[in-house]
């Protein structure tokens, strides 16, 4: 007998009731939805059907949830190869929305939604926000970019679905963001963690104390960030920071989110089925083991993704959360498998750089990693913006800061990298997402 609470608390938002589905019921629902989505894709998506044929599989071979491991993976390249509509499983007349990536490398990634997909997307975001303790009466500022990027509109519909008052500022115009936060009495902010850091910094320059505002929660996503970064944000702004996870290929933001226990991110697994596999071999890994997160959309109609390789490295946390949700949790995602850098034979992740920088008091980590190749050797430079908190009128103090940063990076990374102090606001930002790595090794 499971003694944990498996019924929804009476005061929970109606949309959150599925968060507490008893496990046997949840697993049965997942299997039923998995079989349906496999059947739909097999019937409608040529690429999927071809791959099933190669393996001699038909939808009837999926008889249990474990059978998911038989299915072929889908990768980001599949979306590029079938650009723009090759993975659609619904006719265009049923597609009510298209989103696309910024497409910095060639053609963008296109994703599609039926009305039901949009409704599911809204419902999972309502569950995210409700899990963060937000409700009707909260004033939520959405500073994710609106437009083709899934962040803005996704969070917008979710916040409206919750019953909150939405301030759709989209990205950019930091001074106006801060003015509205203050004048409208905004209680929750939704944006990328790096953009919020920028706002903290700018507010300080404008003489606005974030701790005196009504702002009490920040729901941050769309880029990996570390727990040290969370502590830094919470300390500097006096808010509670939540990690929101998602990716456009699956639905956008809202695949998973932290609850108020902050012990991992609940995956809304009645819609998105999580697995962890060895990133090298693709073999399934047990709960608690770190590997690549694989997601299957269980209810998506317009563009289902089956065993999609997210390239995000995490683990499924064993056991149930104290909050009572039956939904499994993944660990915070600090890195992606394709983020790993090989510098002179040593593996380096950008998250390690972030952790090192945050060890130094007073550093707001606006940073960028620049890779170059000099006489066949990889060179890594960490550029750190000098903010007003870090700036000192004396060269000696700046050299001291430089040396402390250098020391922390040496200790954490185990290799010597160059540290460069650069002017504030000089590092490139795109769509509010921090651009952490500039690779000039091929140049």
């Amino acid at each position, binding site marked *: 007998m499971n003694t944990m609470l498996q019924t929804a608390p009476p005061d929970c938002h109606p949309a959150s009731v599925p968060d507490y589905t008893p496990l046997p019921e949840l697993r049965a629902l997942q299997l039923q939805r998995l079989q349906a989505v496999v059947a739909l894709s097999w019937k409608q998506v040529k690429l999927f059907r071809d791959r099933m044929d190669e393996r001699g599989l038909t939808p009837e071979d999926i008889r249990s949830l474990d059978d998911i491991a038989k299915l072929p993976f889908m990768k980001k390249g599949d979306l590029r190869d079938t650009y723009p509509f090759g993975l659609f499983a619904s006719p265009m007349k049923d597609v009510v929305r298209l989103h696309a990536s910024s497409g910095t490398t060639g053609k963008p990634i296109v994703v599609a939604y039926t009305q039901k997909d949009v409704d599911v997307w809204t419902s999972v975001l309502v569950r995210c926000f409700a899990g963060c303790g937000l409700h009707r009466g909260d004033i939520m500022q959405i500073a994710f970019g609106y437009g083709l990027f899934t962040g803005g509109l996704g969070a917008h519909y979710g916040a409206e679905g919750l019953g909150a008052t939405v301030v759709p500022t989209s990205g950019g115009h930091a001074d106006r963001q801060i003015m509205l936060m203050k004048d409208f009495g905004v209680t929750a902010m939704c944006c990328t963690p790096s953009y919020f850091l920028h706002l903290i910094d700018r507010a300080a*320059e404008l003489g606005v104390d974030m701790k005196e505002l009504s702002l009490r929660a920040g729901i941050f996503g769309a880029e990996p960030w570390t727990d040290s970064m969370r502590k830094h944000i919470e300390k500097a702004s006096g808010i509670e920071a939540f990690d929101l996870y998602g990716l456009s290929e699956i639905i956008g933001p809202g695949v998973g989110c932290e609850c108020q226990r902050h012990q991992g991110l609940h995956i809304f697994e009645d819609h998105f089925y999580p697995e962890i596999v060895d990133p090298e071999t693709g073999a399934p890994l047990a709960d608690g083991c770190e590997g690549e997160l694989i997601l299957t959309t269980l209810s998506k109609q317009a563009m289902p993704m089956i065993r999609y390789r997210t390239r995000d490295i995490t683990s499924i946390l064993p056991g149930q959360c104290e909050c009572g949700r039956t939904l499994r949790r993944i660990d915070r995602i600090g890195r992606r498998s394709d983020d790993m850098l090989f510098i002179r034979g040593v593996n380096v992740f950008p998250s390690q750089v972030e952790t090192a920088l945050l060890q130094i008091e007073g550093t707001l980590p606006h940073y960028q990693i620049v890779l170059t190749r000099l006489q066949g050797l990889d060179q890594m430079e960490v550029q750190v913006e*000098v*903010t*007003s908190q870090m*700036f*000192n*009128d*004396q*060269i000696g103090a*700046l*050299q001291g800061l430089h040396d402390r940063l250098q020391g922390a990076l040496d200790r954490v990374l185990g290799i010597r990298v160059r540290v*460069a*102090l*650069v*002017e*504030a*606001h*000089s590092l490139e930002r795109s769509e509010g997402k921090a651009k952490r790595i500039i690779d000039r090794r091929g140049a």
Partner: protein
Amino acid sequence: MKIQQISIFVENKPGHIAAPTRLLAQEGVDIRALYLADTQQYGILRLIVTDWKKAAETLEAHGFVVKVTEVLALMVTDRPGGLADLLGTLDGTGINIEYMYAFSDVRGDKAILIFRFNDPDATIAHLLKAGVSVVTSEELFTK
């Protein structure tokens, strides 16, 4: 008697000093003294300007990181030993000069030097007692 000096962080790259000076020119702020402390990578541009508040606001509005520091402007006789005499008054006081540089104009036989001391207030009291001429900002900006 203290003078407000503004300092900005600049990267050691072509054009990086031109940008802030151009902004000040647009706002009609006159730079009266300037000193660049530099390393291979970056530098600190220190400026004495006619309107430090306007200068700081303008630069900050354009994303520059600005620090306002209190410095003293001291009058020194423009003759061999003039500076040595002035510095001699500091001997044994524990007053530390963090940095110093020359102001642009010379008045008669007097030169003006800008000093950043570790404790400007205590230093003013000491210098006045020692008979050193401490220049006020009004005097400094009247040509």
